[in-house]
């Protein structure tokens, strides 16, 4: 296990601040009707950013749920560019270009866990030196896919890191109504694999946990279930009103444990961060997001793109439907 260097921690903080700034900006853009549903990242930054900073981007795959993209900056600027397309509802938002080893968002909860196990299994068959890191929430851990995938991963000894981001809430359902288990990490026992619980607001702790899990996997010792305990500081999404169910005193306490404030104060004490660094990072984040959004808005889209990429080539049925669609468009044009 290697702990992150101070320089790495600073890079992690940059990505965390970027993610929160951009998430806030997207929230406002959604309220203006410019983008679709947004799942705010507040409170998740240390867990997601530090986890991907423990990866080797050339070899390791990331299978996100849906809240992660703004925090996956380490995998390249294309992630933000594609996420802006996705947020606009452009189909190209689902196409993360080669050779970036990141899957698009997964809305069907938990279904990405079997995919990650399949990828990890496939990498061992191809003798590739990589792991698959899969993100899912405390709520997703109640899906059958979590159990089937965790069980198969254990049986196959697949190099997968299952990262359960326990933010205490599945929309309005609190963790005690999600499971009677003492922790989500404890569920690893049923798979015969190690389960570890970390403070997900501590970037260095998450980095260490994922780094260790990755090393185990690459050494042929199989999967690890990591539970990162955090608190969702914002709404589930722009369609949610958490004041209906989140106790204000709990939220207040969680805000005092904000992962960005923690890492900031740590790096400020080391002289690696200050208000100027914070302001410059936030400004850059806004600039990058606006540019990516402008580029996404300029991306062309033809009406018959609705039929593209269903199959490798159009079937007879799709050929007919494409002709009908284009003919209807020509009638409208006239």
């Amino acid at each position, binding site marked *: 296990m290697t702990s992150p260097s101070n320089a790495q921690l600073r890079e992690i903080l940059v990505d965390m601040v970027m993610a929160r700034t951009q998430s806030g900006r997207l929230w406002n853009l959604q309220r203006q009707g410019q983008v679709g549903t947004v799942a705010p990242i507040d409170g998740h930054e240390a867990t997601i950013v530090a986890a991907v900073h423990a990866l080797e981007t050339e070899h390791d795959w990331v299978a996100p749920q849906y809240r992660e993209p703004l925090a996956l900056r380490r995998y390249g600027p294309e992630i933000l560019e594609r996420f802006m397309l996705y947020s606009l509802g452009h189909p190209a938002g689902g196409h993360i270009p080669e050779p970036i080893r990141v899957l698009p968002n997964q809305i069907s909860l938990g*279904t990405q866990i079997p995919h990650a196990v*399949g*990828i990890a*299994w496939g990498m061992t*068959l191809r003798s590739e030196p990589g792991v698959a890191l899969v993100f899912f929430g405390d709520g997703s851990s109640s899906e059958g896919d979590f159990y089937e995938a965790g069980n198969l991963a254990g049986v196959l000894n697949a190099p997968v890191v299952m990262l359960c981001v326990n933010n205490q809430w599945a929309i309005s359902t609190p963790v005690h109504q999600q499971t009677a288990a003492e922790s989500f990490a404890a569920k690893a026992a049923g798979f015969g694999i190690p389960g570890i619980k970390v403070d997900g607001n501590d970037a260095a702790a998450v980095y260490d946990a994922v780094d260790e899990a990755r090393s185990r996997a690459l050494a042929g010792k199989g999967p690890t279930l990591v539970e990162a305990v955090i608190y969702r500081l914002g709404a589930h999404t722009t369609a949610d009103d958490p004041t209906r169910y989140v106790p204000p005193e709990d939220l207040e306490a969680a805000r005092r444990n904000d992962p960005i404030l923690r890492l900031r104060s740590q790096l400020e004490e080391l002289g690696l961060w200050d208000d100027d660094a914070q302001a410059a990072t936030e400004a850059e984040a806004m600039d990058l997001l606006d540019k990516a959004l402008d580029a996404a808005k300029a991306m062309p889209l033809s009406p018959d793109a609705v039929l593209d990429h269903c*199959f490798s080539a159009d079937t*007879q049925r799709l050929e007919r439907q494409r002709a009908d669609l284009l003919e209807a468009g020509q009638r409208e044009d006239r």
Partner: protein
Amino acid sequence: MENPLEDVATSDLTMLQAINETLHAEMARDDRVVVLGEDVARNGGVFRATEGLFEKFGEQRVVDTPISEAVIAGATVGLAIAGLVPVAEIQFLGFSYQAMHQLAGQVARLRYRTQGRFDPSITIRAPFGGGVRTPELHSDSLEAQFANMAGLKIAMPATAADAKGLLAASIREPDPVLFLEPLRGYRGIRGDVPDGEHLVPLGVARTAREGDDIVIIAWSYQVELACRAADTLRSEGLSVRVLDLRTIVPLDIEAIATAVSHCGRAVVVQESCETGGFASEVIATISDECFWDLEAPVARVSGYDVPYPVGMLEDHYVPDEARIIAAVRHTLELA
């Protein structure tokens, strides 16, 4: 009729032997092919479809999974993303309900939702269909449910030669294919199968019997029954064509239109429930393509709108030669 096999060396095989040989050949041809499923390795599959693969290709490429249909289907997505060519077995199609969210929501949509980033070279094999007195949920014909999942191709061979040609094509296909194997056909269908490479493209129907008065449109084991019905009626002087769809997705719309336009009368046969079955899609296609060539309404021979029944009742549920013949006679008698 023309025999496309007359110039090639063939072997007389059951459908099961043809499937097994094809799996051997495709695994030997492409080392990216991996076989996964319940009891597929040491046991060679509960029907022996995967027999000998484990011994020949080893435990890395022929893998017994836990009893977990969802992760069998879901893992194929990951394996395909990692550059492999998974051939998964769902032990009986009725068990696919436990994998439905992965098949419909993930396998079928992978190419579309990633806009072509990944080639889902995935084959899901599953036996199905009635007539062999299986326990509950072993016999259901669910093909119409899968045909309603955009992005999935569905192969349903009716002959041993097509089982080979369509399976080889399915494994090499860059799109996901559900390959459905009729239980009664495993040992009940046999015939000449070309030796060596034999590919049948997906989406090209086959004329199983030539005829001019009426066409019976069918797929999978019902083609066998349709051919028996056609042969019986031929001895009475009726000229009955049989069109074997081979794949219901892609659907060979042109072949359906050509056959129905030529004959003017049609009967569509399926094993599934009547309501929402794939026969409805075929009949709607006939209406779209060649309604004015029809001389009589199109008849449908189906299972009934009940769950697949237990053994003592299944012969009353699954269409048989007598019901097909009755539908043909009725359709021919109409003005």
